[in-house]
């Protein structure tokens, strides 16, 4: 046991002190932080708003003795486009050329179809895709709202309802009385499944390379004269797992620190609600009632509610169990394959049979996500080579206890068999040089009692 500890210590330290570990440890949180912060920063810094002058030449209508414009005064300014109104096209075009506006939008009524035509002029600043899209969408929306109001005499509230039918849906699990939040569960399951897939490949590959490095450098002959060969294999598997956990822990801590740092440096960074929008909306018939504040609030609430609906300790616990077992299952096999690799070139043939089930599991992910309780999903979450990924997809939805028990039991048994087989292949493989190894040989080694 003492020697196993010595091996784990060396393996761990040698991997943690590598430059690549250092770089990856820094790069991960940086990328994460950038992914979160950069879009916000970009939005803030590229906020050169686009000035549009609207000329509403559509004849006004009288409703309830009020004279109402179709378009004038109904555009909503936002962080991308700021609307203002003008009366004279010629003057506005002159102003456009002088740079007072970025765009002049003239809306007219015509006798042929469609009856409303919009003419947009620009000079120095061609509108970007977003600005253009915003102008077009708002124009359509305003036209529609005005039509509804003028032709059907609908109230603002009705129009709002038509534009954005608000129905609160409650999908409830009748046993627990909890709401479903299927999308949240799907996303969470997918993230967890992919994480396991990624970790198994990433760390399994590390074990494989580390084993084959010892074989290729021939130091392994000295090592096995000092310790039992399985200690070397287990030492590696344990050390790589520890390295992975260290890296994961550092990522979480560093990402939180970086995000915290950004927040302190720029307190408004996650609070991007453009304030201008709210005031301008008041007079607009458009019923787009989701103002910036609502946008910010609602998803957060939903996430919190969703998390309440999901049994987080169960999901986290199952993630650890399946991660650990899946890692052991594949890690041991990757180690065995590493012992067959003499020069870097070969060995691919042997890694194929263990990468295929992993890739198969990933291919099945969309089907399982569509129907997490289908019989395909149930089988794949019991078959040990796919269960670490597929079961994680299903766990957030709630899986019958007996299925989890069977799946974990089968997985544990397979892990034991896999470690046993890997150790047998490993102890023979590492000492075999320059020989073409076939599958037949592997079966022979597994059956051999003595090494």
């Amino acid at each position, binding site marked *: 046991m003492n*020697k196993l500890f*010595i*091996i784990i210590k*060396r393996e761990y330290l*040698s991997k943690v002190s590598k430059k690549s570990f250092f770089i990856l440890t820094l790069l991960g949180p940086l990328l994460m932080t950038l992914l979160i912060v950069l879009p916000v920063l970009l939005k803030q810094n590229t906020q050169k708003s686009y000035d549009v002058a609207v000329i509403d030449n559509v004849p006004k209508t009288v409703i309830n003795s009020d004279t109402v414009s179709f378009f004038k005064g109904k555009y909503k300014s936002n962080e991308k486009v700021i609307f203002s109104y003008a009366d004279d096209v010629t003057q506005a075009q002159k102003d456009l050329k002088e740079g007072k506006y970025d765009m002049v939008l003239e809306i007219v009524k015509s006798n042929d179809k469609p009856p409303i035509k919009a003419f947009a002029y620009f000079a120095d600043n061609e509108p970007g895709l977003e600005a253009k899209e915003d102008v077009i969408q708002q124009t359509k929306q305003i036209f529609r709202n005005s039509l509804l109001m003028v032709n059907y005499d609908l109230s603002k509230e009705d129009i709002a309802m038509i534009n954005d039918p608000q129905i609160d849906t409650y999908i409830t699990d009748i046993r627990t009385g909890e709401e479903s939040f299927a999308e949240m569960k799907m996303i969470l399951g997918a993230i967890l499944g992919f994480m396991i897939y990624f970790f198994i490949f990433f760390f399994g590959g590390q074990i494989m390379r580390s084993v084959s490095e*010892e074989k290729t*450098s*021939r*130091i*392994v*002959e*000295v*090592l*096995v*004269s*000092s*310790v039992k*060969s399985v200690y070397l294999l287990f030492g590696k598997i344990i050390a790589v797992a520890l390295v992975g956990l260290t890296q994961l822990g550092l990522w979480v801590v560093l990402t939180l620190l970086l995000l915290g740092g950004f927040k302190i440096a720029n307190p408004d960074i996650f609070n991007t609600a453009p304030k201008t929008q709210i005031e301008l909306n008041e007079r607009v018939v458009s019923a787009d009632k989701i103002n910036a504040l609502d946008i910010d609030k609602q998803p957060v609430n939903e996430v919190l509610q969703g998390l309440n609906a999901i049994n987080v300790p169960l999901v986290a616990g199952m993630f650890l169990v399946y991660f650990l077992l899946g890692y052991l299952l594949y890690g041991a096999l990757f180690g065995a394959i590493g012992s067959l690799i003499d020069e870097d070139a070969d060995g691919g043939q042997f890694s194929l049979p263990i990468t295929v089930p992993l890739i198969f599991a990933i291919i099945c992910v969309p089907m399982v996500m569509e129907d997490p309780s289908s019989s395909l999903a149930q089988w794949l979450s019991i078959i040990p080579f796919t269960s670490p990924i597929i079961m994680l997809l299903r766990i957030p939805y709630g899986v019958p206890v007996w299925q989890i028990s069977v799946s974990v039991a089968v997985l544990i048994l397979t892990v034991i068999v896999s470690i046993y087989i890997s150790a047998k292949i490993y102890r023979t493989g590492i*000492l075999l*040089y320059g020989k073409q190894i076939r599958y037949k040989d592997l079966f*022979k080694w597994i059956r051999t009692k*003595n*090494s």
Partner: protein
Amino acid sequence: MDTVLEVKNVSKSYGEKIALDDVSLNVEKGDVFGLLGPNGAGKTTLIRMINQITKPDKGEILFEGEKLSAKHISQVGYLPEERGLYKKMKVGQEALYLAELKGLKGNIARKSLDDWFKKFEITDWYNKKVQELSKGMQQKVQFITTVLHNPRLLIFDEPFSGFDPLNADLLKNEILELRDKGATVIFSTHNMESVEQICDKIVLINSSKKVLEGKVKDIKQRFKAGLFEIIIPGEYSDDLLIEGVTKTDVIYNNGTSAIKLKIEKGRNAELLSNILRHTDIISYKEILPSMNEIFIQTVKQANNE
């Protein structure tokens, strides 16, 4: 003398291939024991068994009278033919790691390492990475890692390969010094010259079987073929020979002739008096076969049987 290692009727096969077939040998304390044989004869298999890397199918191996077990690992030092170290580790760290794996405590290993580094005058290598060293330098480091834990039994597989003659000589003297300090050495090589120089006893393995065993001196006596070299002043003439003696070679050089003769048993005295009747004898000596000749002859003979 105490027996350090006793290999008793050991057999081992891999599938259909027999690697060792009923091999027995004894290594006494303080011996430099040569383990000889052509490639693929089974030497490495035997060495791996002594190192407990593999186990015999049949037979047993005793270390100082006890059945070989995990506690003996720290008593054995092994320099494999295929050398290898972690390329990216620092020299000092790597040596300490290997010593720790052999069961040596960190501080003792450190002290011992310092002594060896001083002895080889390489203290400035301590913090260098292994890959920065030349191949010969790496070999030196590997030699140190083999002996660092002060083992009672040392196993060297082709220790001189990769060393220049100067360092090979240094290494040879180190091995003999370790022997003088009480270590026992098993020495596997193809280099018969070095066998003659340092081995006391040898075993020759061919095609998984032991074919020759004994002290180097005794084996040479056993294999002598009645060859002698006589040096006389002046030139050689056939008058010098008598019945039962055949000349194999004559070299005339600076007024003396070196004559190689094969002499049948019991004819030496008569031959010498016959020669003295004609001329003087400057020197007279028996030519013993070299280990190289014995090796080739034995292996050829074994293969023909």
